[in-house]
């Protein structure tokens, strides 16, 4: 295969061409080795035919709002996705929505082997854009109001349709650029990507962009200083929260299942062993002379465990208060606690009402085994002459309250993350043709990632 001799008159190495503007004489560099269709003179703004050796003038424009300075100067080279690119062209475009003009900038990038690529910038938000080789499929959904587009197996949601005007150009363009030309631009988003169609007369061009942070652009082109700060949320800006929300909820669900299993396990293992069950009578007259008494001694066996003390009193519009002391007969260690049992009910203008309960339960944690008794000192409503009450003591009962606290502690970050994702999506879509009207609308337009 090597017998083919190289051509004698080898084609000369292409070089960047230096020419002069036929209008004002300023120097013009053609950097794209003939890929450019048009080139714009940087000093007099004549749009010239880059294919013509004499650079025929195609259009002359006045920069309506003065000179626009590209953030990345023409001729700057940078590395994008591992390939060197040179900035060869720049244009500012605008669109008018409800009387307000919005401006954005586009940079034409060139590599002699890889061809043309673009960078766009809007208020500090950047996109790395290339022309689609594959046709996107555009379909309408639910009555045609909400359009979607499918590209390489991914669904993009319609964001905005607008008419884009070209109002300032500089350098080289691989197409016939004209100031004042209007194109119909439609954007579909699937963060961090944006799929755009641009319709100019009868030609439709599709391009695919990926969101870039200003810092990445600055690093790629080694630009001095800091990039302009990004304002607001851009149409295809990846949400810092959305991608994590699913993960947080999955983790939450996993922990909740784990907690439930733990709860069930402890509940099953708990012996719930009754050690005392007695009914006493409170009499106001007697309690004056002998305010407190002690119960029979009961034994707590096994490992240190919870002890539950339950009180029942058939109070009705009264209260009874019991000062308890759980006392270890062997060591004298005591746990003091007071419990109130009260129940009130009646009728008023709103109907019947009630407050309190005739039951009370309290759990004393980690009580070592041994012989115990309760010292009880009852007090009661002065209006109450006497009342029976039941004291029940159970050993080794499950404590469910801590599970509730753990559950809430896990729920909080998931809820906060979801709220942040929600607000981000709300900001994104409020700038679109489909601003969120209610929760349902937003829910359908976010969170379908992963």
């Amino acid at each position: 295969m090597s017998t083919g001799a190289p051509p004698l008159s080898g084609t000369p190495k292409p070089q960047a061409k230096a020419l002069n503007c036929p209008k004002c004489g300023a120097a013009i560099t053609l950097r794209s080795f003939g890929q450019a269709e048009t080139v714009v003179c940087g000093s007099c703004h004549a749009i010239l035919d880059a294919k013509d050796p004499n650079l025929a003038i195609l259009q002359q424009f006045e920069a309506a709002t003065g000179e626009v300075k590209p953030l990345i100067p023409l001729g700057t080279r940078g590395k994008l996705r591992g390939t060197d690119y040179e900035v060869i062209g720049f244009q500012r475009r605008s669109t008018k929505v409800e009387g307000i003009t919005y401006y954005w900038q586009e940079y034409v990038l060139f590599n002699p082997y890889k061809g043309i690529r673009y960078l766009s910038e809007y208020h500090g938000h950047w996109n790395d854009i290339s022309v689609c080789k594959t046709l996107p499929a555009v379909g309408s959904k639910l009555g045609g109001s909400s359009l979607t587009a499918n590209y390489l197996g991914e669904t993009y949601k319609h964001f905005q349709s607008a008419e884009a005007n070209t109002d300032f150009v500089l350098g080289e363009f691989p197409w016939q650029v004209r100031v004042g030309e209007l194109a119909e631009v439609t954007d579909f988003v699937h963060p961090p990507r944006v799929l755009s169609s641009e319709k100019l007369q009868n030609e439709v061009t599709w391009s695919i962009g990926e969101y870039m942070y200003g810092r990445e652009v600055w690093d790629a082109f080694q630009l001095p200083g800091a990039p302009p700060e990004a304002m607001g949320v851009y149409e295809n800006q990846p949400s810092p929260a959305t991608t994590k929300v699913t993960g947080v909820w999955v983790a939450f669900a996993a922990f909740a299942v784990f907690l439930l299993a733990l709860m069930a396990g402890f509940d099953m293992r708990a012996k719930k062993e009754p050690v005392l069950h007695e009914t006493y009578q409170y009499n106001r007259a007697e309690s004056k002379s002998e305010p407190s008494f002690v119960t029979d001694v009961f034994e707590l066996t096994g490992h240190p465990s919870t002890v539950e003390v339950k009180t029942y009193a058939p109070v009705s519009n009264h209260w009874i208060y019991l000062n308890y002391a759980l006392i270890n007969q062997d060591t004298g260690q005591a746990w003091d606690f007071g419990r109130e049992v009260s129940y009130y009910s009646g009728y008023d203008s709103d109907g019947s009402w009630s407050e309190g309960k005739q039951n009370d339960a309290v759990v004393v944690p980690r009580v070592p085994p041994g012989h115990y008794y309760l010292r009880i000192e009852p007090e009661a409503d002065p209006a109450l002459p006497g009342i029976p009450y039941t004291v029940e003591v159970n050993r080794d009962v499950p404590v469910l309250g801590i599970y509730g606290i753990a559950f809430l502690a896990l729920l909080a970050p998931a809820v906060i993350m979801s709220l942040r994702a929600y607000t981000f999506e709300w900001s994104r879509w409020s700038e679109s043709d489909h601003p969120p009207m209610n929760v349902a609308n937003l829910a359908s337009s976010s969170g379908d990632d992963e």
Partner: protein
Amino acid sequence: MTQPIANCPNCGAKIVFRWSSSVQTVCQFCKSILVRTDVHLKKVGQVADLPPDNSPLQVNTEGQYGHQAFVVVGRILYEYDQGGWNEWHVMMNDGTSAWLSDAQSEYALSRSSKSQNLPTLAMVHVGQQFTWSNQRYTVSVITPAHYRGVEGELPFQYWDKTDVTFVDLRTESGKFATLDYSDPQPALYLGEFVEFDDLKLKNLRSFEGWG
């Protein structure tokens, strides 16, 4: 691989065919367009110097398509109102040939298709759909072009054309088709877009200031 050797009937230089099925070639020395007949080479025309172009490819560029290696043996250069593009004639290592088109660094590899009942040019419009080999293609652009020149070996005689019309079609899966109306009988080429990096090209041209 057969590599028939002959001499240029115009200047006597050695002519080597790298692809045994080549019908036409261009003498590297005197730029005569030579057509192969049964017994000898016949000069049918003369190539004017090709305009400087920007394709990184050239005759002798080697590359890979899938598991097949190929080498560029010839090309046809076309011009249209938005610039020019090259159809590089490549020889695969299994002896078949294909076309690697380079339109402003957008590369597509296609092969001649035997499909019948192709539409006439008057019947085709942008947006129209056709199905070939179970694949639905949509007409994306109709390009009136000029034949600008040839270089190297080609699988057919191609040297006296002027205006030619191409119809490009795309699919939603990166496939590509071209209807070629340079002859009374339309020709169909089916292929796909390829990434520059995937072609692993060697022996490319170099550009001043670009390593």
